[in-house]
């Protein structure tokens, strides 16, 4: 099994996540796309750790997971707050800072 295949898969997943962030308008779905991007980087970390015989990549992937969990908690709380005031989860509606 070519170890580069994992890296290529991680690049593909990252790309799909990035396109999703650009294309979708629902804030929650955009968040999911960001999660997929983070997971893709995690896969790259783990693949490189496996390829180099070094566990540092796994440790960093673990930290990425922790940061992602914290980010999800705060981000979803922000989305809930915005939804409570604007009754919408669409990023097109969030133009309070514009005026």
């Amino acid at each position, binding site marked *: 099994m070519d170890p*580069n295949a994992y890296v290529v898969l991680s*690049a*593909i997943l990252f790309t799909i996540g990035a396109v999703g962030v650009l294309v979708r308008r629902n804030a929650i779905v955009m968040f999911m796309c960001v999660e997929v991007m983070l997971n893709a980087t*995690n896969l790259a970390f783990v693949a490189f750790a496996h390829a180099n015989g070094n566990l540092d990549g796994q440790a960093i992937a*673990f*930290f990425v997971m922790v*940061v992602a969990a914290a980010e999800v908690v*705060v981000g979803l709380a922000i989305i809930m707050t915005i939804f409570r005031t604007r009754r919408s989860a669409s990023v097109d509606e969030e133009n309070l800072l514009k005026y």
Partner: protein
Amino acid sequence: MSIVAAATSQAADASTWEQSAVFWVCAILSVLGAIGMVVSRKAVHSALWVAVTMISLAVLYVALQAPFLGMVQVIVYTGAVMMLFLFVLMVVGVDSSDSLVETIKGQRWLAILFGLGVGISLIAAEGNAIVGPAVGLDAANTVDGGNIEALARLMFGRYVLAFEVTSALLISAALGAMVLAHRDRHTPRLTQPQLADARFLEAGPKGNKPVPGVYARHNAVDTPALLPDGSISIDSVPGPMRARGALRPVDRANLDEVTDVFEGEAVLTATPQPDDEGVQ
């Protein structure tokens, strides 16, 4: 754990066809999940597709000799994070599907073009980053007796400062989420009787109207009902008959009242005089 151990031991030999099979199945599943997430109209479907992607990635972690990360992936991502997503989706509204209207013209095609560019350059840049066969983690994993023990040595040794900072981050995130999700109540919470009163006040005029003839001496459909105070209830007669003026008052007092109502000066305080003959 026997599956994990089997997968880990199989992964040791980097050229076995089992690892290739695991990789291709999980790779196709994860890419399918990611694409499904992007193209699903409903946010709940997107969440389920993301769960597919994350479980496939967990299997890939195990195949890459990272059983601890695989388990953490299942527990934290598919367990906690996706449930949080679904919970917020339920609060925000399940049927809040995305609109297909493009706010910026041509943005979708530009985004796909951008994605193609990013993907091609990423694959070109790091697609051949690993030269030679993978070293494998057999040596690193067996130094301390296993993957978890080796990770623990790293976590509480070289990365102990980052680990402690992580705890501060998690506490701040929990506090921030609580502050953000907390809502100050400006008005006192309505009690059950107050809610019932509000509902009645709102639905009062829309409630059941008296049917024609109630308490009157006739129950024909053109006879207005009498209210408890003796006045007539003009609403009790069907609208078309009211429009035609085809009302039959039960007595003379009511006749005057009906004329008043039709002339725009509604006098609804007349007392009934049951001795009078009804005007036919």
